[in-house]
């Protein structure tokens, strides 16, 4: 593991306010990514518009072609993907196993009205 040199400012993002108050107007929301994970369909029985790290990572995937790593459609920009797990002691003093899949997407996209927008999104 390496601690990267690139720095980013930590900022707080409100989520619970009414969407309009938060400035998330309908025209700014991206489209869903096309397709769904066949692995999640097998596991959950539902078509989820998202692909697992093992499906999207071209360096490790066993599939012929990597799937789309984005969770939004009609996008041109940068994406970062990391999947990790480990064991930590929680606030109750109990060791717990954790796992995470985090992605950022920063670039331009066409919203649901086909308007060109620039923004950043994250998948947790």
């Amino acid at each position, binding site marked *: 593991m390496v601690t990267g040199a690139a720095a980013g400012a930590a900022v*707080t993002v409100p*989520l619970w306010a009414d969407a309009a108050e938060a400035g998330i107007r309908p025209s700014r929301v991206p489209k869903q990514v096309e397709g769904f994970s066949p692995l999640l369909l097998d596991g959950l029985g539902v078509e989820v518009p998202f692909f697992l790290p093992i499906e999207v990572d071209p360096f490790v995937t066993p599939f012929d072609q990597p799937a789309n790593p984005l*969770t*939004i459609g009609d996008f041109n920009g940068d*994406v970062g993907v*990391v999947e990790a797990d480990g064991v930590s002691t929680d606030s109750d003093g109990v060791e717990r196993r954790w796992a995470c899949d985090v992605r*950022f997407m920063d670039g331009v996209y066409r919203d649901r009205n086909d308007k060109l927008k620039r923004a950043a999104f994250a998948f947790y």
Partner: protein
Amino acid sequence: MVDPGLGPFDPGQVQIHDFNPGDLNDPPEDDWFQQGGLFWTANVPRRSVSVRSGRGDASFHVQQDLFDFFDVPNSVFRNGPPRHHARAEVRIDWHGTGDRLRIRNRDAGFFARYERTEANVFWRGENLDTGYSLATADDQVITSAFIARVRSGSFFR
């Protein structure tokens, strides 16, 4: 997060917390992918992201309001206990290894220039309704890490 006494990580283990932002959607639709929402996706400030493509370096540092759905099935089907308010502090750094790939997936409609990376993850999640929290440890296993420049949909054609 799950009880480690159950053995190596397996999504089938009994999960007790699941932190995610819900599925970003157009109001007044529910923030649920089954109603058109973006699965576990939220807006973040552009200044929370830094990318140095070509070197494979990137960072994502943010404090994000989330929800605790307790487990994945409840987050996907919304058929369990009501979600709690939660908050996460996330600091992730990617560092390029020099491995690169270019892939055009015509069936899925995207082109990507990939850079394989190492990564370091700090992730602290707190359920604000109960006070429960857990942070990642330095002793972590990275099972997938890369950055990519992607063109999809109308930008691919």
